[in-house]
């Protein structure tokens, strides 16, 4: 898929396969083209180049059929704030020609646990509740694929965890998810991942596959004055990144031997060095750094 806006190529030959029933994470910095890609899939934007099939339908020619089987949750809350919870759900149900509309809406409200607040205006809801309402509305026509664009932005950790519980339950019922996120813990909850930057797909696969593909060696240091150490290490050739993780510092490079040489002068008291398996976050920071240095 390719999508251009004037000079800018927002999505540059992104090639992606998501298996049915999978939770697929879509990561990348702001402005990397994640939202554009989702919008192409659900027919909101037309791709300039490329082809694709969503649930067996051609992305470009059969966008109407796709719309009926896909639920798309926008990044910004996009339901009607001057309509009540019930009115919003009822409207969406009507737009999809849902059978037994009233009953479906009632069930949806009960599942949400909002039976008593169904007459409350959507605009008065908190961020967490808005997100739950949006998800319920996206599910009301029983889609087979859900495209969620940063669904948990601005939602507290408890609500985020509940949300992911629900995603996993739904995935168990053969629903497929394509979710964009910035959160590493969320990325790790996905079965497979893709990393996109400046419109280009940089890595794709399971969490372990993505980490091993980046091929990073990481050392963890503990001790005093880590901030100062980090500063010195960043200036040392052979060290690609030095990132603070709580009370420790992760020092990584794709060249294990060079890293070993580089950190040798610092391996003394009060520092405690230990080689650790690289995490997803280390891998992504590496991808982002690499991307910036080549730009």
């Amino acid at each position, binding site marked *: 898929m390719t999508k251009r*806006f004037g000079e800018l190529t927002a999505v540059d030959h992104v090639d992606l396969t998501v298996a049915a029933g999978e939770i697929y994470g879509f990561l990348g910095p702001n402005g990397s083209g994640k939202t554009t890609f989702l*919008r192409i899939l*659900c*027919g*909101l*934007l*037309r791709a300039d180049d490329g082809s694709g099939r969503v649930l067996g339908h*051609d992305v470009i*020619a*059969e966008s*109407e*059929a796709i*719309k*009926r089987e*896909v639920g*798309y949750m*926008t990044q*910004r*809350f*996009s*339901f*009607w*704030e*001057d*309509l009540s919870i019930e*009115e919003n759900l*009822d*409207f*969406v149900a*009507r*737009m*999809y*020609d849902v059978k037994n509309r009233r009953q479906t809406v009632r069930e949806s409200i009960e599942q949400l646990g909002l039976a008593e607040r169904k007459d409350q*205006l959507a605009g008065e809801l908190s961020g967490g509740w808005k997100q739950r309402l949006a998800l319920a509305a996206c599910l009301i026509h029983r889609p087979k694929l859900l495209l969620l664009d940063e669904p948990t932005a601005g939602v507290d950790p408890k609500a985020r965890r509940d949300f992911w519980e629900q995603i996993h339950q739904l995935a168990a019922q053969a629903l497929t998810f394509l979710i964009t996120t910035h959160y590493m813990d969320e990325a790790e909850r996905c079965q497979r991942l893709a990393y996109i930057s400046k419109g280009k797909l940089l890595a794709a696969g399971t969490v372990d596959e993505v980490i091993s593909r980046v091929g990073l060696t990481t050392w963890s240091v503990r001790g005093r004055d880590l901030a100062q150490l980090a500063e010195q290490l960043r200036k040392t050739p052979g060290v690609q990144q030095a990132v603070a993780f709580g009370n420790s510092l992760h020092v990584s490079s794709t060249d294990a031997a060079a890293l070993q040489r580089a950190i040798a002068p610092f391996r003394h008291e009060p520092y405690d060095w230990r080689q650790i398996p690289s995490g997803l976050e280390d891998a992504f920071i590496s991808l982002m750094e690499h991307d910036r240095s080549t730009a």
Partner: protein
Amino acid sequence: MKQPHRFSFQRLRGIIAKEFTQMRRDRLTFAMMLGIPLLQLTLFGYAINSDPRHLPAAVLLADQGPQGRTLLYAMKNSTFFNFVRQVKTEREGRELLERGQVLFVVNIPENFSRDLWRGDRPEVLVEADATDPVATSTALGSLGSLFDTALQNDLKGSLATLAGTSGPIDLRVHALYNPEVVTQYNIVPGLMGVILTMTMVMITGLAITRERERGTMENLLSMPTRPSEVLIGKIVPYILVGYIQVAVILIAASFLFHVPIEGSIILLGVVALVFIAANLAMGITFSTIAKNQLQAVQMTFFFFLPSILLSGFMFPFRGMPRWAQMLGEVLPLTHFLRIVRGILLKGNGIADVSLQLWQLALFALVALTIGIKRYRQTLD
């Protein structure tokens, strides 16, 4: 590839129901829909009095005889004129006119009475402030018959022969005034068109740009809705609003301003439907161009001003230059004004208004087609 996707009344009903609910919640817009007709009716109907009386006038009375005074008393009694000043020279009178202190200067020359008795048809000059022709035309129009009846008593007996002929006085009016006598009968029916133009174009313009501004358009587009469903769904609720406005204006026209309703109300209802649809379609077309609600409002005014100025509402249509008339012919308000005045005041029937009605319908069709064509189903 064929897409098994038909127009759905279920969806259309859904959109209509949503619009009504949002309309009810949006107090300001709702107040505007009722407030604008009432405010404009009061402003145009009462404040802007096109049949003004007690207009300030000055008199230059050179005549020593009784008939000059008779004329002045008659003018005063007609309640159109209120003599506030007596001037000595024409120059003085002109100055008063220029400064706007009087609207008229009545000049009764020396030997007016004597010339009248002789049957020489003496000249009476009335200079009128033509900058506001609407204000002065009724008063000026009344002068001819006013003078004739005023002098009837004095011209009995030996002078009776003069009364019957071309009139005993040579009345000269120096003013450029409206060829059409504009009165409230003319303005109130016209207001119906003006109010509908303003509110209908703006409300639909807002209804669609609002979805875009709040980000809900992205959501609406990701659903399997068709452009025609969305656009018609947004038009229908406001047709009802338009009818409520028509009813308010008709009731006010009849009870407050005693405008006669000579023709058929049902015919008026049919015409109003076409006119409302034309304006709503215009609003939709604007909304496909405007990026936000503010631009939609600006475009409304861009359309509203020529409508008011060139349709014959403010100025007599035939008094305008040719290019302005041609522009005016394109505007739906021009045709609606002719129809509505025809029906209400002249009792026009369907045959009389059919040409104008077709022109209105054509405008509505063209505007709606452009609107649907321009309404994008994608975000790019």
